[in-house]
């Protein structure tokens, strides 16, 4: 290679992390220091965020994707992408990032009422200042006072939610004048403790404050063992108060919900003190050995609060069920609380942001277009088979070669053109553009699943060698795929082996329904919302009616619903039958519609409770009306069981096994994915983008680590 020539980077995979790395490495300010080639299995980018357009231009997703308002890095990536793309608003329906994302402040958790009915516990989060991804020249790490300001807003909003539930709050205490503070009595802490204990159960939260006051004074003047005595007293008293108050709020559904939030706040406060999180150099990582529920319980949260719809919804959003088993909810406490703090207290604009079209359309098509303009090469239909490592000494370990199966050849030998146009919007199709492939019609007839783990067909092998074909590698495939695409690396490196054993994943399932009636006529009176915490097999539902305007039906469907959840793990790929898994999702969806959907959409069921199958719109025959369960076959459903499709978990005790993109065990390799040690350590878009930015930093020294928002965070 000529001196001064660009460093050649092979990026394996096309998900959020890999694309973020490509975007950072090819920023114009780097002046083409890197020549990037993306190697992607199958026909489209996106990874777990891939989507495609099917019949009637309908959007077919991998699953439900919502962006949270704290996804600073992910939003900044997309804002920069759209700004550089400079689409013409007159010609393209999604020209700017604001066209692509819409605020969604209405969320809900499904709550089983005391009479057995299901109700949606709605919350509308206030719009916060700013917009996610707002440019910042000098990012300051999130501070505790920041959390406080956000907490006040959240609590106020919960109170408003309570008002909307119809609870009379006229009897609020109006005399809020503070009693004269007594002189601090730090010289006699045990007398103060006696005073505290005399207040008994009715002084519950007051006891907390009083104990904290004593704690603070003792910090300045007492030997260290005594604060533990105070904390013990605090716990005993608070526990008694909880029992007392719960007697009042039991059978009062609205109050029960509010109390559960207050109880969880108390447990988090107590735990943060007891576990020394304010000063522990590990930050919230210090409690990652605990499951979040377990940690809250350990710090005094009641069973009612721990099992409340609020907590259940958080687990649902994170697919936090080991092995896809709903009886095994598990998520590392530190990662969960860090994510919750950021989600509730640092969001900008809106709590949730929904995409105006498929994730492929609004995220990966623009990224593809910008990267193409920058000169990035895309090698689709390249399935990684192995990563060969070399180096005689530990200091010289590196990736020596990459082996691929080429799944299909492109007609004319050029690059595969992956996008199609739907109503003026560049989109990914739901299946390959067969007309662009050599033997394309044969592949279509055979029904080739190029993105599937079990699709092993190839037209040739291809081997890339270091120094000859590439200089650096960004390994951006899913963690569950690593043992299959990099077996030599896993076999030779104990740390990688430990990572793939401990950083586990879970399969998910998703269903999309296109309906003939709008949500109001089906019984939903409130604004479109996202709801979690419902029954299995689909605990999460989002009203996605708004995306219909960018599909190409003769008339936009009156309602579109996305359902998703984890699914039971079928086990290792060798023993998995993907077709059987997909059939199980179909059967589960039919059963769900017949038995449960009436709780959410009363107007969608008949007098005897069965689902009104005639509601379903057939994309191939919009005017056709089917009246039995066979109508479901016209809808879209998926079982995400392929290793690269599985969702990354943050199980207790697992985060320590993650390897950072900055790890330099191999001097020409970096990693990218939400499964890496990326700071946030949760399975989500933001983690993936942070990881991609870290991977770029590992190769280029940019972006600066201080510019990756949330990387430096307790």
């Amino acid at each position: 290679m000529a001196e001064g020539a660009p460093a050649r980077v092979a990026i394996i995979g096309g998900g959020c992390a890999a694309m973020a790395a490509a975007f950072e490495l090819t920023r114009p300010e780097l002046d083409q220091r890197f020549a990037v080639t993306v190697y992607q299995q199958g026909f489209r980018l996106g990874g777990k965020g891939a989507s495609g357009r099917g019949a009637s231009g309908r959007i077919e997703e991998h699953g439900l994707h919502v962006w949270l308002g704290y996804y600073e890095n992910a939003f900044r990536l997309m804002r920069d992408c759209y700004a550089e793309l400079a689409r013409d608003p007159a010609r393209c329906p999604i020209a700017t990032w604001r066209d692509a994302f819409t605020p969604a402040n209405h969320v809900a958790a499904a709550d089983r009422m005391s009479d057995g009915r299901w109700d949606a516990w709605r919350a509308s989060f206030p719009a916060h200042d700013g917009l996610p991804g707002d440019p910042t020249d000098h990012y300051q790490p999130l501070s505790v006072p920041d959390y406080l300001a956000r907490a006040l807003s959240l609590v106020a909003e919960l109170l408003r939610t309570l008002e909307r539930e119809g609870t009379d709050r006229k009897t609020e205490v109006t005399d809020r004048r503070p009693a004269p503070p007594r002189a601090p009595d730090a010289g006699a802490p045990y007398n103060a403790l006696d005073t505290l204990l005399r207040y008994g159960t009715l002084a519950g939260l007051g006891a907390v404050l009083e104990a904290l006051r004593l704690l603070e004074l003792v910090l300045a003047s007492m030997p260290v063992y005594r604060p533990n005595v105070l904390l013990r007293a605090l716990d005993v008293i608070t526990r008694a108060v909880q029992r007392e108050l719960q007697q009042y709020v039991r059978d009062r559904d609205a109050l029960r919900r509010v109390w559960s939030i207050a109880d969880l706040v108390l447990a988090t406060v107590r735990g943060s003190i007891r576990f020394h999180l304010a000063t522990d150099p590990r930050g919230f990582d210090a409690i990652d050995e605990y499951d979040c529920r377990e940690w809250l319980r350990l710090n005094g949260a009641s069973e009612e609060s721990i099992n409340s719809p609020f907590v259940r919804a958080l687990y649902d959003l994170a697919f936090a069920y080991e092995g896809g088993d709903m009886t095994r909810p598990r998520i590392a406490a530190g990662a969960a609380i860090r994510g919750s703090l950021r989600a509730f207290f640092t969001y900008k604009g809106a709590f949730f942001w929904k995409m105006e079209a498929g994730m492929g359309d609004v995220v990966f098509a623009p990224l593809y277009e910008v990267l193409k303009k920058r000169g990035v090469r895309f090698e689709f239909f390249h399935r990684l088979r192995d990563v060969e490592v070399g180096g005689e000494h530990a200091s010289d370990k590196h990736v020596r070669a990459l082996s691929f199966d080429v799944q299909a050849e492109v007609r004319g030998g050029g690059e595969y053109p992956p996008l199609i146009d739907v109503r003026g919007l560049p989109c990914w199709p739901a299946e390959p553009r067969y007309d662009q492939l050599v033997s394309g019609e044969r592949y279509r007839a055979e029904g080739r699943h190029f993105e599937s783990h079990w699709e092993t067909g190839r037209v040739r092998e291809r081997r890339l060698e270091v120094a000859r074909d590439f200089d650096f590698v960004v390994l951006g495939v899913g963690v569950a795929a690593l043992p299959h695409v990099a077996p030599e690396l896993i076999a030779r490196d104990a740390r990688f082996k430990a990572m793939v054993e401990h950083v586990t994943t879970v399969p998910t399932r998703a269903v999309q329904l296109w309906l003939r009636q709008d949500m109001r006529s089906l019984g939903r009176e409130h604004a479109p919302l996202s709801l979690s915490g419902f029954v299995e097999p689909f605990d999460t539902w989002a009203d996605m009616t708004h995306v219909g305007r960018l599909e190409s039906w003769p008339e936009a469907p009156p309602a579109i619903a996305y359902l998703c959840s984890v699914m039971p793990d079928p086990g290792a790929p060798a023993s998995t039958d993907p077709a059987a898994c997909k059939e199980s999702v179909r059967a589960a969806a039919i059963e769900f519609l017949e038995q449960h959907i009436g709780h959410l959409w009363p107007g969608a069921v008949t007098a005897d409770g069965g689902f009104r199958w005639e509601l379903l719109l057939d994309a191939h025959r919009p005017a056709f009306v089917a009246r039995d369960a066979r109508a479901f076959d016209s809808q879209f459903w998926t079982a995400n069981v392929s290793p690269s499709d599985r969702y990354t978990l943050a199980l207790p005790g697992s985060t320590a096994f993650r390897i950072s993109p900055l790890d330099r065990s191999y001097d020409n390799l970096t990693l990218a994915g939400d499964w890496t040690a990326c700071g946030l350590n949760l399975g989500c878009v933001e983690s993936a983008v942070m990881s991609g930015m870290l991977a770029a930093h590992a190769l280029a020294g940019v972006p600066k680590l201080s510019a990756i928002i949330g990387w430096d965070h307790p």
Partner: protein
Amino acid sequence: MTRRKSAVQANPPKPDRKKRPTAERTEPRRDMASMFGDTKPPPQAAATNGAAEPDPHVASGVGAGYRVIDEYLRQGQEAARAAWLGGFPGLGGERGRGEAELAAMAGQMLRYSTELASFWTAMLNNVSRPSPAGDIPRPPAPGGFDFGGPVPSPKPAPESPAAAAPAHEAAPAVTLALDSKRPLEVTVRLDPHGPLGKLRVHDLRAASEELPRLRGVRAELRSGSLSIALKVGKDQPAGVYSGMIVDDATNLPAGTLSVRVR
């Protein structure tokens, strides 16, 4: 606590194959004390009756605490009176009033939770800085409390309380003497209350027992400056190696030393 890091690039890349640059660091900063607070010890508070005068945050918390207690007592008395008069549903009284009372209690609870969050915030800001006398309480040993429910199995919780000792006036400067052809990242953490006499460093061990230890590491404290000397062979496997820094005379822990070999 003192933290010093140093990266040494002692292995220049060969011209035939490009190598990644050395990152400034490989881990996030999660220490709120160093991120948000002034890492210098606060000035010694004036003593009142032998106790430190609380700062305004603490005083505010104290006031809030008493206000809350008084409010709760009054609320409790009213709730008891209402129940006695038959105001709560289920006790044969007027349903509307009982629900209103419950709503008021819920509102109060939320407000107090907010005040609690405020006080907690102030306290965290306060304790994020090294205390002039005494460490912050550590969590109790798992299982040490009776919450009336199942207690989970013990986990590797944070360390037990450190012995109370005056904090060191200022963090010592750290000097590294490294003999290595490998890129290294060195992290030194000193207990601000730990002994700082003649020091000894245990062998640095990796997570895997199969990896060779880093031996012969020396630490010396002289004139307020801490010198660390260590040697890493070229065949030392990459990884993180950690060990204790202890007081040579008493064997009490004084801190930790971690070396990331790349």
